[in-house]
């Protein structure tokens, strides 16, 4: 989607945004992109919004103002912000709840503070990190410390006082007798290095503060110094279970910018590969839910069958997790001669086997008791917190990008969007199971009809994208995965930003889990399917 920005006056920004939500129905905030627009425009943000009824999208561009911060209290991390030049924009976190973490991310990377945001702490980087790395003038020294980070127990809230001066105040995160337990960063159930700082009352969760960035690899910053083909190499390593979809989104946005026409063969193969990848991811997901609930045997069955999916993909792509298969203008290689036969065998094999997971785990009374009413979230909240993907569909939100904004072959095959209305972890699990059948359906329909043609449309040796901004999204394995591209006509992007699937999911943990048990936290964490490198990028 080529972006045409709306823009508002600084003073009216908050009310106009509220209007967009209330009057025009843009209730789903897809993402906020922080950007250093260069010397003339300075720092600013791009907001991408969607109307969940009509699936219409719009985007808003807002430039930050700068001012010297007043005589408030010392800020965290960067030292006293008093006397510093600060860029600021009014916060939208009270309009769309998902903005809470998104704005913290932008504060972390660009140093833009959001007026009225209650908790302006760094999100990804250490508190003693110097500067804001995504600004174009930032230079790092590559040094790091083996000391523990100093973590403030308060968040800062910035506001303009009646004279229009920028001020800040502290909001406490904990009370004095809170029992705080760190789940992560090295914990078997967080699927990587997520850290959930959990306030407990006995076994009951009172509050969850997610701490991210333990695997923040700064892919978006690295992209700004890479040529377009080189940028592709990194996407597979985000959510390594959705390698195909991630690359699909990136390749899609670049191809859209360049105006590349693909052959039907490429589109067919990409669709099949996306679905194979989804099967791979969902099989691992069902396994991991079983594992986190303590049913190791259930896990092993899923992992065993996942190997067959991997085998098929590896024959064609040469990779088990990191696929390297899509490239700008097509595919890395043609499909393996046995690919069609293998896929058919797989469909035949997998259909009855999925029932086995249900027998051993999914239908089990213990599983039902563990997952039902665990981590509940209503449809309204799901949209507000932008809980996309299967987790949102379990609350009845029809948010599948494949249906709403069809790409490649998805508009032309018959399949159903799986939604349930339980709003809890059990239905999240069941949506995943149902989606596996749908993936098999899609593969079955396409596999016999792959047309002849080229698997690669030859591109120029040096790839350049004309000036402009684009946003392209695909249905990733755990939600909408999109890429925003701002090109200034160079051979490398000016700013490229992903909409990670997991970030909004993590933001939803706190409202989901208040009043639940620790065991529910683990179960919800498993059922909602977060993969940390995707969140941290």
């Amino acid at each position, binding site marked *: 989607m080529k972006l045409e920005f709306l823009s508002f006056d600084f003073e009216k920004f908050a009310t106009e945004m509220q209007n967009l939500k209330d009057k025009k129905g843009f209730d789903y905030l897809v993402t906020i992109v922080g950007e250093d627009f260069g010397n003339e425009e300075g720092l600013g943000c791009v907001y991408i919004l969607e109307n969940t009824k009509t699936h219409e999208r719009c985007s808003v561009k807002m430039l930050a103002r700068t001012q010297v911060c007043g005589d408030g209290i010392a800020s965290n991390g960067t030292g006293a912000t008093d006397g510093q030049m600060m860029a600021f924009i009014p916060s939208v976190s009270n309009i769309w709840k998902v903005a809470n973490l998104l704005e913290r991310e932008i504060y972390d990377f660009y140093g833009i503070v959001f007026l009225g945001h209650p908790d302006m702490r760094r999100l990804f980087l250490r508190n003693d990190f110097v500067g804001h790395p995504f600004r174009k003038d930032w230079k790092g020294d590559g040094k790091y410390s083996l000391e523990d980070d100093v973590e403030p127990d308060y968040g800062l809230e910035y506001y303009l006082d009646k004279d229009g001066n920028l001020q800040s105040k502290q909001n406490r995160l904990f009370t004095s007798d809170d029992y705080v337990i760190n789940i992560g960063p090295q914990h078997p*159930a967080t699927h990587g290095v997520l850290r959930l700082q959990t306030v407990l009352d006995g*076994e009951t969760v009172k509050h969850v503060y997610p701490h991210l960035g333990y695997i923040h690899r700064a892919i978006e910053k690295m992209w700004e110094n890479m040529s377009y083909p080189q940028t592709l190499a990194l996407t597979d390593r985000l959510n390594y279970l959705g390698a195909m979809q991630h690359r699909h989104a990136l390749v899609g946005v670049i191809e859209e910018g360049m105006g590349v026409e693909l052959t039907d063969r490429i589109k067919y193969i990409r669709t099949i590969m996306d679905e194979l990848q989804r099967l791979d991811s969902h099989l691992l997901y069902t396994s991991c839910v079983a594992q986190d*609930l*303590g*049913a190791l045997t259930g896990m092993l069955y899923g992992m065993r069958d996942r190997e067959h999916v991997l085998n098929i993909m590896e024959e064609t792509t040469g990779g088990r997790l990191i696929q390297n298969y899509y490239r700008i203008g097509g595919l890395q290689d043609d499909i393996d001669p046995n690919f069609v036969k293998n896929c058919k065998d797989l469909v035949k094999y997998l259909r009855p086997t999925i029932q086995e997971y249900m027998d051993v785990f999914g239908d089990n009374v*213990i599983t039902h008791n563990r997952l039902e009413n665990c981590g509940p979230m209503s449809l309204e909240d799901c949209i507000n917190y932008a809980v996309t993907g299967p987790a949102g569909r379990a609350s009845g939100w029809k948010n599948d990008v494949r249906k709403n904004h069809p790409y490649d072959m998805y508009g032309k095959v018959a399949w159903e969007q799986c939604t349930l209305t339980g709003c809890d972890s059990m239905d999240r699990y069941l949506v995943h199971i149902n989606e596996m059948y749908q993936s098999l359906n899609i593969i079955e329909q396409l596999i016999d009809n792959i047309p002849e043609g080229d698997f690669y449309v030859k591109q120029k040796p040096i790839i350049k994208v004309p000036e402009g901004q684009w946003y392209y999204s695909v249905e990733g394995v755990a939600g909408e995965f999109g890429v925003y591209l701002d090109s200034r006509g160079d051979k490398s992007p000016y700013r490229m930003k992903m909409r990670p699937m997991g970030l909004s999911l993590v933001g939803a943990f706190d409202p989901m889990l208040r009043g639940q048990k620790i065991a529910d936290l683990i179960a919800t964490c498993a059922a909602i399917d977060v993969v940390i490198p995707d969140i941290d990028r």
Partner: protein
Amino acid sequence: MFDFSIVTQWFDALLRETLGLGDFLSILIECVLVGVIVLTAYAVIAMILIFMERKVCAYFQCRLGPMRVGYWGLMQVLADVLKMLIKEIFFVDKADKFLYLVAPLLVIIGSVGAFCFLPWNNGATILDFNVGVFLLTAVSSIGVVGIFLAGWGSNNKYSVVSAMRGAVQMISYEMSLCLCLITAVILTGTMQMSGIVEAQTGPFKWLIIQGHIPAFIAFIIFLIAGNAEANRGPFDMAEAESELTAGHHTEYSGMGFGFFYLAEFLNLFIISGIAATVFLGGWAPLNIGIEAFDTWMNYIPGIVWFMVKAFGIVWLLMWVKWTFPRLRIDQILKLEWKYLMPMGLINLVLMTVFVALGLYIK
């Protein structure tokens, strides 16, 4: 049926009469000997169980389990034990040193103590009091204290949560466990271990057959409660790998951890052993009242019967563990107080009625 007390009496006589040792010395020698035998048996059975668990779990999970250390992986556990023995042990700063040290010992003492009550063969019961069953439940619950202290003493937040869980769970399930044993005692009329087995010799005399419906219900409840008492899946709340890293023994390394590990497996065996003794007739062979068959069965030594029954139940419990997901703490308590406890009580009344009316197989 071979009576093992012949051997022990012979040995006692050897010491006292042939060698002419005094009371004190002969008892000392006997105690030391029994102690050594108990500890050796304890260690060996623990190792067998660990190996069995790894193989059984692997086969449930379509894997092979240990294969490369020794033939068919038979030496695997030996290697593990060897490594664990020489692994560094250290103390955690700010831990309560005394409690931290005592906890694994308590756990192992509780489990060795309970281990001594098992009747291995006719005449081969190490501790055979007239209040055997009663004492057994008392001794085995020392382990709870160990787990609680380990959690508290380690100065680790996961451990504390785990300690709370462990204590709550075990104290609750002790109720059902005792109720089931009492149900059995009503039928056998004795609390002495040897007496309980004695009451089950003869055709169709195994308690589970003799007491049919109430005994069977008691057996099932006993297995569930016992599984919880031994802290094994689906009731492995205290350890809860995926929630509390390693639960109460998070901060233990080397043999300290080794003790918890051994005790966990031995508790499994003890629960199975008691179930086998009380409900399946312990060393009593399978008799069906046809003489030829019974004589043949009686030729098989009692210890073989006992082991086969005990390991059969161990396998059953492993099957359960490797099938089900873990329960949540409130669900565990709900299961106990809402289902098992009332059922146990009703079952107790039922059994009393059956015995009073003579409805059991005589």
